[in-house]
């Protein structure tokens, strides 16, 4: 893993680059480990409270530890009518966790998301930002099997 300090410092000269830095850290760790906030605050000349405020504003960023595979399930209207609810339930049952939780082995985190912009093929989920489209509950085991 790349050192958080180094990741963030590489954005130092980018005005307003804190969000880019957060994305870069999250790409590496799947969430923003605690020290991210202090390091980012110091790097971008703002306070920790301000950095924390930024990090918690954006739903794509997480300050809570997440699993290796973050499954975000869209439930916006087009996905909703295409059966998102059943799909969500299927994931919850398959992983034996509720939305917002992480499996005990730290492998999967289930999250809801709003639209991810793949509405031609609903319902849609993303796994670590890669979209999987046109899913139905029956495909859940196969989708999970892709995560190795």
């Amino acid at each position, binding site marked *: 893993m790349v050192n958080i300090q180094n990741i963030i410092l590489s954005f130092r000269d980018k005005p307003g680059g804190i*969000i880019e830095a957060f*994305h870069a850290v999250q790409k590496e760790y799947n969430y923003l480990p605690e020290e991210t906030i202090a390091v980012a605050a110091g790097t971008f000349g703002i306070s920790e409270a301000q950095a924390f405020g930024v990090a918690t*504003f*954006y739903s*794509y960023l997480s300050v809570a530890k997440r699993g290796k595979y973050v499954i975000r399930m869209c439930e*916006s209207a087009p996905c909703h009518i295409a059966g998102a609810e059943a799909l969500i339930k299927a994931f919850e049952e398959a992983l034996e966790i509720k939305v917002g939780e992480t499996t005990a082995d730290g492998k999967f985190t289930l999250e809801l998301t*709003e*639209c991810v912009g793949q*509405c031609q093929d609903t319902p849609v989920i993303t796994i670590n930002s890669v979209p999987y489209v046109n899913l139905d509950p029956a495909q859940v085991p196969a989708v999970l099997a892709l995560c190795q």
Partner: protein
Amino acid sequence: MTEEKRIVLRNADLINPKKIEDYMQAGGYQGLEKARLMSRSDLIAEIKKSNLRGRGGAAFNCGLKWSFVPTDAPVSYVVCNFDEGEPGTYKDRIIVQKDPQSLLEGMAICGHAVNSKQGYIYCRGEYPYVVELLNLAIDQARGKGLLGDFDIEVRMGGGAYVCGEETALIESIEGHRGEPRFKPPFPGVAGLWAQPTVVNNVETFANLPSIVLNGPEWFAAIGAPNYPGTKVLTLTGDVANRVSIEVPTTATLREIIYDFGGGIKEGKKFKAVQVGGTSGGFIPESLLDTPIDFDSMRGIGATLGTGAVFVMDETRDIVDITTRIAKFFEHESCGKCNPCREGTFRAYEIMKKINNGKAVAQDIENLTILSQVMEKACLCGLGQAAPAPILTTLKHFYPEYQARLQIH
């Protein structure tokens, strides 16, 4: 019958989006070249004359917007709003994925018009794969020296729908919480880092190369006179063909759903269509012959907005869908202004109560007054538009609400 007319998607599937040479061969960057031979004021006058209106929520005359940038501003910015977050919308993604250079060329044209040296593309965080493509495209354009002294940087959003609002977007580029600013000042006067800033979306910029190349008269003659040109639409929901299309703005909703979308899936009957994304109004069958241009849509309480066309068949539960939409706004409200922060939350709670069959008439009354106040009192477009689905469904589909009440 209306046919597809491709301006922004003119190169779609005809060129390799990863090869700038393909784009050049198809006439790419000739618009920019032509623009650079014009004076700034002439260029702005041309765009004004074309009557190109922003392909986003406000449909403001593009050239007029540019003209607000003070001519003596030492620093100004061109910002591309690529934060399309409206559920049912993915047209900007299609445009960029199929032809990224047309966006860059459009931004560079704008850069020339407002004397800007720096552009930003604010791309939603859900599209990391598109960001890669964009960066490749920028590298290629830069490598060929096509952008001249204008540079473009891509910034990623973070899953905040409100950042589609131009001032929230600017806040986000500055590294802040994406909370909208009050206006005035407008970005044209004081935007990014308090400098004059033009914010347009992908589709607006992508129109520019053709307009410059073919002249404003050419463009103004296409589609509806008050909203000329084409519109890229994305069809979702219960249509047979869930496709993206580009049509002149004279096309009607019925044509779009039935001619392009192939009608309702599985031979079912039409019930409602929501245009412009989740903040759009619900339109019943009786209004389907309305053309899609911005003003006509506004006339029926809808919005063209992002060009999302979300179709619902006869089996769909309007109250349930509206409840789900209320949840969307509850989730996406930034929380800065009172009526939106509290209003979206309470509206969702009331919708849930109705949806669960626990509500009484008073609840609908409360929902109505709340929605009416939000429309007029919220700080930004998000809160102002959030009640539209509620108010339009209450208007056109009231019996469905009534049927849910405990005491009818």
